[in-house]
């Protein structure tokens, strides 16, 4: 089976004062194309660091990551940015919308970066799909948490990504809103055929994915298909 993400013997350390802190230690796994995947583990286990490295937001100390057929180590920061723009989508725990842009403007940023003409039409379509057709000219601070996360979902799918990374997508939402957002996330994912990688504490959410890995103290302690 073809894979979209391959992580090989990945190690990452951060220095804190004079001390070096190993956050990830010799982690390896593969994510098949089109699957859904969750990374779970307690706080401080290295989940978010792993997500950031896999998405090319940071560089590895040793080991390699191959994303969408490209080894990230060989790319410069700007080249990794272009790769993200063309093939990667993101959903964050705290929504991460640009506060000075309206909902639709936020959604079309990845398309505009690609130089796509008439990006607004795609943006409108996506916002209607997530149920925010009436609120597309609102600023983030005029939207509720759930609405902001739906805008973030629309943005994440706007560039038709091959892989979507979601970092605790329901972490900042109440239960009911969280459920709606989860449903929307999986529906959109299914529709677009995107590979989904979720970092979460929420075991219920993790169980909804095809595969799950568990980290503890920076080490991969479990790698299995989700129950």
């Amino acid at each position, binding site marked *: 089976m073809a894979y979209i993400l391959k992580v090989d013997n990945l190690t990452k350390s951060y220095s804190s004062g004079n001390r070096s802190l190993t956050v990830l230690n010799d982690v390896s796994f593969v994510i098949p194309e089109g699957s859904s995947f969750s990374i779970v583990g307690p706080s401080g286990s290295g989940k978010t660091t792993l997500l950031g490295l896999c998405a090319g*937001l940071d560089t590895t100390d040793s080991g390699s990551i191959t994303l969408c057929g490209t080894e990230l180590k060989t790319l410069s920061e*700007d080249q990794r940015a*272009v790769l993200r723009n063309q093939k990667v989508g993101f959903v964050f725990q705290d929504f991460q919308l640009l506060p000075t842009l309206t909902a639709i403007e936020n959604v079309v*940023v990845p398309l505009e970066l690609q130089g796509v003409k008439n990006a607004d039409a795609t943006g409108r379509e996506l916002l209607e799909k997530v149920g925010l057709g009436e609120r597309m000219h609102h600023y983030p601070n005029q939207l509720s948490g759930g609405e902001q996360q739906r805008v973030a979902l629309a943005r994440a799918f706007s560039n038709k990504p091959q892989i979507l990374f979601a970092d605790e997508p329901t972490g900042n939402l109440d239960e009911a809103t969280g459920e709606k957002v989860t449903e929307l996330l999986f529906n959109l994912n299914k529709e677009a055929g995107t590979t989904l990688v979720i970092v979460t504490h929420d075991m219920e959410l993790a169980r909804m994915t095809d595969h799950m890995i568990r980290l503890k103290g920076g080490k991969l302690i479990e790698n299995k298909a989700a129950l």
Partner: protein
Amino acid sequence: MSTPRTSKAGFGWLLKMAWRDGRASWGRILLFMASTILGIAAVVSIQSFSDTLKDNIALQSKELMGADFTIDTDKKPNERVTFLMDSLGGYDAREVSFASMASFSNTDQTRLVRVRGIEGNFPFYGSLETEPATAAANYQSNGGALVDATLMMQFGISPGDTINLGEISLPVLGALEKAPGSTSMFGAIAPPVIIPHQFIGPSQLVQLGSRVDYNFYFEDTTTNLELLDQKVDPILDDENADMDTHTSTSSRLGRRYENFGKFLNLVAFIALLLGCVGIASSIHIYIKEKLPSAALLKCLGASRKQTFMIYLLQIAFMGLLGGILGVVIGLLLQQLFPYFLEDLLPVSLSLSISVPAVVSGLLLGVLMSVLFALYPLLSTLGVSPLATLRKQDTQNALPKKWGWGVFALILLSIFLISLWLLDNAKYAIWFVVGIAITFAILSGVAHLFMQGIKKFFPKHWNFEARQSLLNLFRPQNQTLILILAIGVGSFLISTLYFTKDMLLQEATLADQQDNPNIVLLDVQSDQREGVAQTIEGNEMNVISDIPIVTMRVASIKGRSVNDLRRDTTSTINRWVLSHEFRTTYRDHMVKSETLLEGEFIDSASRQGVIPISVSENFARDTQTNVGDTVAFNIQGVVMTTEVKSIRTVDWSRMEPNFNIVFPAGILENAPQFRVFTTKAGSETVSAQFQQQLVKLYPNISVLDLRQLLSILQDLLAKISWIINFIASFSIFTGIIVLFGAIRSTKFQRTKESVLLRTLGAKGKQITKIVALEYLYLGALGSLIGILLSLIGCWLLAWFAFETTFTPSWFPFLVLFPAITLLTLFIGWSNSRGVIKSPPLQVLRRGS
């Protein structure tokens, strides 16, 4: 798979994003922009006014001179000069002018005036403006005088009264309001009186030692004046005469005003720099808040350059907008200048918009804003996209060399702009060094202050006092920028006060001590005894009776002046080659002189080498040292001398000082006249003495130093007004920077205040904390500024003026409390909203 190519979003997208991101922050951006507006307005107004003035002077060059060209000399033209003038077709009008005392029939008062005896239809361009207007046309045929309008008003003279000049009395025909060649600035010292040339001889005012100017006016519209000047001037130089064309005169005049404009431009530029420091500080906080957005943009695929460009464009646009507003305000301000400077301007002005000033205003707006925002802006390059996941990763530390690079770029730009404003590399370097030192000292003291508080924190102080001190080094504090803004503003105002004090002190010193306040010029040898008796008859003393012998330099170190004039490689200062020196002889040095080199020879005989003493200025300009020979032409007799000593001379002392001093025993028999100095105890005694003297000895000119001092004070008041006006832009900029700095940290302070209130602090306590915080800042900033200025002025007095400096108390007693209270008021009024914010609302927003 191939390596991903760069993002396709072009410049249009960057503009769009800059606009989108900026529109939510326009209020804040406008406030940053306001910091530069006043500085740009000041620079543009002065630049545009200087350009307009220069253009007006050039356009009115003929009216300024009244002729196409003139030939002037300070002695009766000799045959060669006369022949040359004849070969040019002969002069069309001529003038003899000199200073003399005048008295009037209607009043007992006397006054030093500039007599201008004119023959011919002068001026050929422009006009003599008189009241009544017919007086200008009739004074020659009716044999009357045109008297300076201000003088007529001061003395209550009306047309029909009589003016007495030497041995003649003429009817006053009209008030002279404007004449080519007379400026109101110099007119204040010796107001002009125009009479027909034919009365000069009968007045018997032109005697030995009289400083007389002979001007010959030519009307010639066909000749190429530049070529003529090149051809004729060297010939005239040899004869100690000079040719001036209307264009060369106007460009010389233009340059003189340009220099004053350059100085004002620097004062304005300081306002702009202060505003820029405000920008740097506000943008620092602004960009810090934008870093999460920058990280997100990178996460979504924007390159480092694109992210950087979005914010750069915002700042550049803000600078452009500030530039546009600054230019508009500057051009409006320019309209006010002619009213302030009316008496100092040589021409009537028709104001226009100077395109270079407008362009430079816009460029300055963009350049300075971008430059000073560059360092905080660079952090958008360093921000990691990982910051979207981890808050602590917002900032990758910028390499130190970037900071130094930006600092070097800022210094270089300030140097280049000062060079452009001053047109002199040496002065530009000094300006940059001065600015850097001032800013460095202010920042250093602010830094030391904060370190000092940390180290010696007054733990026993009450809660409010301690809390307000702690606020000075809270995260994102604006302590440094506020101390800089307040300090530079206070520094500027107090420097202006101290400098003015110093200049006036120099002038008034003579009056305070037992120094002369009346100088009598052109006393002939045979009048010596009589003049001394008149002085003593008025219960005054002759303080000095100084012999004066006029002479010109004939050769320097064996090379004749004509030879030196032709030598284009000679670096000897040209003025010494044609100047008529008034020299003296004596066997001692006087109070205003200090021996610098060699030995002052008290007496000598004409046998052998004649030893002389020269001033430091003369030695420098003639490039002579002790042991060098200088020959003088003393009214036809050439005398070779040797420089035996070099003296420094305190020219600022209002008493006769000399470049060249001969020893006793050489010049006693040379044709000479004398200068007397005396001191009048009161204005009444002075006036009475002058009336008596003018009646007895009409050829003697009286310089009333007290009168001169009041003219100087008037002039200084006018000049300092305009300097104060431009410097006030720094003050207002400082206030805006202060305002901006306080606004930038408003949310932070609101949060702090709310937390304190949640924990039980009363509104009154929070008000006290805020008030004390700004009281510390205001007091510290203004005190450092004033002290720094005091030290600067003291050094200036010590090294440049070589005088003791007694500073005015004004900056300490008025400026210090005023600025401190102003800071406190601005701080407090901007924090009222903070104090009143409902805690819950703020806590929610904060979370």
